Each structure stands twice: as structure tokens, then as C-alpha cells.
């Protein structure tokens, strides 16, 4: 048959590496990616700079329970916001522009496409957040040491763990948002859900069940992951340990991603 001759294509079949290259090209060919990344770095370091600067030149009493590691990682909260937006946009941007149909025409095996996109997103966001976590830490310590405030080094108790886990944790937040993107397919809905979980839920939860606040991503990040000095240990609801906190965040992200993957595979594009 004539078709058979024309369908003379190379041996083998398209593979995940081809899809990964293509997905990477998609990310780097959008100027907004570089702009978002640049602004995130600036915002993060600016917040860390302002917070640590405000901690300088106080009476010794002020530094009671002072956590120089946590102070120097404060800017990473802005990275959580940017990561959440980036994670959601990676998928909702495709739906809003219609690119998803072109993507599926090129790579119709949906589960494989999901896995490739997820893998690439994981590598990029984790690497970015880790690097930024270290930058924020070193900038914060440099500022703290300039004004007589207590400082930490990576060798200090819990400091290296806090810096690394903060980067990973925020990467996980971005992945959870990627899952929201797959579930909702609309930028507004995905980002609203993300902002609701990260920024609104902690405020609301205080009024509902004080004891459960510590299980929320934001509270885990600030009290369990970024912190090296146990603060509320005496209180009725001590923060989760870093490892329990991180595991819980892995679960949250996994739930959002699994739901997203199931819908992505089953739904009409």
C-alpha cells in the first residue's frame, strides 16, 4: 500500500529523552522563564537582606532564642510563591494557549509524557531552590556578622540540614502546584488553590483547630524545616520534626500529582 511506503520512518520509536529535550526547549524559549527566575532571585535575597538587617544592633536580650539559620532563610518564602506559580503555569500555560494539543500530537503516550514533564520539573525546581537556599543562607550570615548578631555556619547544629531541606521542601511545593495545574487546567484556579493552601489555610486553620496548624505546608516549612532552634517545644502543639514534616510534604505533593496524572490520562485534551 502506498501509505506504507510513505510511513517509512526511522527504526525504533520516540523516547522519553526526545520528549525531555522538547520540554526543556519549551521552557527556555519563553522569555518569561528567565524573567521569573531573575525576579525570584532578587526578591528572595532582598527579603533575606531586609530581615537579617533588621536583626542587627539589638540588646543581648533580643537574641534569646535567636535562630540565625532561620532568619537567613526567610527570603525563601517568596521562592515558595514563585515556585508555586511556575509549577502551575508549566501545565496551565499549555492548556490556555492550546499548546497541549500540539504536545500530545507529538507525544501521545500520556503517562510517559506526564512522567517526563514531572521529572524535568523536579530537576529544575529542586536545583534552582537548592542553589537559592544556599545563596540566601550565605547572604544572611554575611549581613548578620556585620552587625554583631549571632551567626551560623553550615557546620552549626542543624544548619546544613535546614538549608538543604528548605530548598527541597520548596521544590516539593512547586511540584504540588504542578499537580494542581493538571487537576484544574486553568491558571486562575490552580494558582488560587495553591495560594489558598499555602497562604490562606494557615490563617483559617488557627480558628478551626489550633492543634492541626502544624501539619500545614507553610507551618512545616517555617517551624520544622527552616528552624534549627526548637521554639515551641514547651507549648501544647510542638512543631513536627524535620523528617516527619518533609515526609508529610512528599505525601501532599504525591496526592496532588497522582490525582493530576489520573485526570490527565483519562480526560479529553
Amino acid at each position, binding site marked *: 500500500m*502506498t501509505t506504507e*511506503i510513505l510511513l517509512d520512518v526511522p527504526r525504533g520509536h520516540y523516547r522519553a529523552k526526545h520528549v525531555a529535550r522538547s520540554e526543556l526547549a519549551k521552557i527556555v524559549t519563553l522569555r518569561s522563564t528567565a524573567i521569573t527566575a531573575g525576579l525570584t532571585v532578587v526578591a528572595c535575597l532582598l527579603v533575606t537582606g531586609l530581615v537579617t538587617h533588621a536583626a542587627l544592633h539589638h540588646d543581648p536580650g533580643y537574641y534569646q532564642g535567636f535562630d540565625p539559620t532561620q532568619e537567613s532563610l526567610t527570603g525563601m518564602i517568596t521562592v515558595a510563591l514563585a515556585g508555586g506559580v511556575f509549577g502551575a503555569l508549566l501545565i496551565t500555560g499549555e492548556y490556555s*494557549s492550546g499548546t497541549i494539543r500540539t504536545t*500530545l500530537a507529538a507525544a501521545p503516550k500520556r503517562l510517559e509524557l506526564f512522567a517526563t514533564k514531572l521529572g524535568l520539573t523536579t530537576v529544575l525546581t529542586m536545583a534552582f531552590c537548592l542553589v537559592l537556599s544556599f545563596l540566601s543562607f550565605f547572604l544572611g550570615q554575611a549581613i548578620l556578622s556585620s552587625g554583631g548578631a549571632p551567626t551560623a555556619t553550615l557546620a552549626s547544629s542543624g544548619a546544613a540540614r535546614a538549608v538543604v531541606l528548605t530548598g527541597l521542601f520548596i521544590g516539593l511545593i512547586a511540584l504540588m502546584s504542578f499537580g494542581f495545574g493538571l487537576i484544574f487546567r486553568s491558571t486562575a484556579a490552580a494558582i488560587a488553590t495553591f495560594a489558598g493552601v499555602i497562604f490562606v489555610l494557615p490563617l483559617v486553620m488557627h480558628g478551626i483547630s489550633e492543634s492541626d496548624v502544624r501539619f500545614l505546608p507553610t507551618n512545616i516549612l517555617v517551624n520544622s524545616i527552616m528552624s534549627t532552634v526548637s521554639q515551641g517545644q514547651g507549648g501544647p502543639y510542638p512543631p513536627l520534626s524535620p523528617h516527619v514534616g518533609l515526609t508529610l510534604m512528599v505525601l501532599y505533593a504525591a496526592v496532588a500529582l497522582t490525582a493530576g496524572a489520573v485526570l490527565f490520562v483519562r480526560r*479529553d485534551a
Partner: protein
Amino acid sequence: MITAHALTKRYGDATAVDDLTFEVPPGEVTGFLGPNGSGKSTTMRMIMGLDLPDSGSALIGGKRYCELDWPLRQVGALLDAKAFHPARTARNHLRWLSLANDIPSGRVDEVLDQVGLTSVAGRRVGKFSLGMTQRLGIAAALLGDPGVLLFDEPVNGLDPEGIRWVRNFLRDLAGEGRTVLVSSHLISEMSLTADRLVVIGRGRLIAETSVADFVARSGGGAVRLVTPDEERFTAVLTAAGATVVPDDGALTVGGLVSPRIGDLAARDGLRIYELTPVTASLEDAFMELTQDDVEFRPSTMPGDVSAERGA
């Protein structure tokens, strides 16, 4: 070769595609014809694996789309024109697409040249006119030099020169032995472009035939008659069982073939200035066939769910 077998797709209560079976053979342009909302786009999306059929199958060379080894090298599709991120340049759009199926990067500039977009290759797609977007969509379909091509309303937004270009282009692709399926609600366009027709209405197959057969099937042609003896001629023809309608200085005669009309004129000494068989247009044939379909299912609103999703 594309084969759709008993393809059915429902959205809630509405059946967008209803037990549709047809074939698209290679080497010809197959026109996919139907009014807006008749299920053309939905069918094409099912062929592409974008929408999953509720039952039935759509196969390309015997395989489902998601089973193809190199989808873009086997099937090229222009489904909706706006399937690009507006902030990406035309070249970068084709670039990422080529990477996904390991298509040599040289093809990007080749297809840009082929559709005449070389001079704007570095421009953001968001700034493109509808016609330019359409050309970029066609370039994307051609990127992998595929043997099977699907075009959904490809002349939308094109100027007359562009329309002629697409028309010739589709014929060339089929001439090279490729399988070409092109949908349109414009009958006139299909009559110029297609060899074969798959005609659907309300998601159901109305006809699958050659363009010539389709026209012939619509109940034979009328005959155009110009004569100075209109009154007498009308009486004679009517007596012979014909229908006669005055039409701008001529008579349109139905139900009698031209030799018979000539014989009657010779018998009664009537003068004929012009006697022309009029082939029924594709449009007439289409209206006639789809009218039945409308009559049988008057409760459904035209252009409901499937129109929203596709066209």
C-alpha cells in the same frame, strides 16, 4: 489510510459522533463535509487520540494514534490554528516540536520556507495574523514529512491567494501518495479540492462517495432553456410531464432530459436559442441530503455541544 469504525462520542446527553464508519484512502484528497457542529472536529480529535471515543475505533495504518512510533513523522495535523504559546517565536515553536520526535533541525527552516513564513520566523506568534497562524499550523503539520495529513478547516482566515495555495498544496500532497483528510463546512471549497467526500450531519454518516457521484446522486440535473416561444413551450413541456420554472429570461426545466426537449421542439416547431443541461451543484446535493437528516431529528438544536468543543 485512516479507518474509523463505529466511532461514537457522547458529551452528556448529546451525541456528537454517532456510529461513524468511513475510510480515508491514500493518494486522494478526502473532503470531510458537514455543517458546523456536525462532529467533524470531534472525529478528527478522536483520530488524533485527543478525545477518547465512547465506543468504536479510529486507526491510522491499523494503529491507534497513541501506538504510533513517531507520531509527527507519520501523521501531520492542523486541528485548531491557535495551538501555540503566543510568546514563542514561530521558529522556536517548530524547534521544540521537532525535538519531540527527533526530526532533523533543518526541517524547521524548510517548512517555514514552504509556507512562506521565513521572513517572520523570529517573530512572536502572538503578533501573527490569523492567516499567518494558519500557515504556521500547516508548517507544523508538515514538519515530520508525514504520510497522513489531517486539516481541520485549513482555509479559515486565509486570503484568496492563500486559499488557492492551500488548495493546490493539498492536491500536491495527495498526488505524492499521501493520505489527506480535510474538513470544511464550505461546500464550494470541497468541490474544488476534494476527490472523495465523507459527508456527515449530526454526527452520522450521510454519504461516503466520490464528488462526482455525490452530485449525480442528488436527483439528476435540470435543463436550462432559452426560447422566444416561452408560453407555448411551457404548455408543451408541462403536458409532457416536466416542471417548468421561469428564471431570468430562461426556463429551468426539470424532469425531462435535453434530447427529449429537442424532440418536442422539432415536433411542434418551437424555436430554441439555448439548451443547456445544468449539473446539480455540490451545494444542492448537500442541502438535499442533510435536509432529511434535519427532518428526522428536529428536537436537537443545531450546533450544540460538538460545535462548542470543535468548530
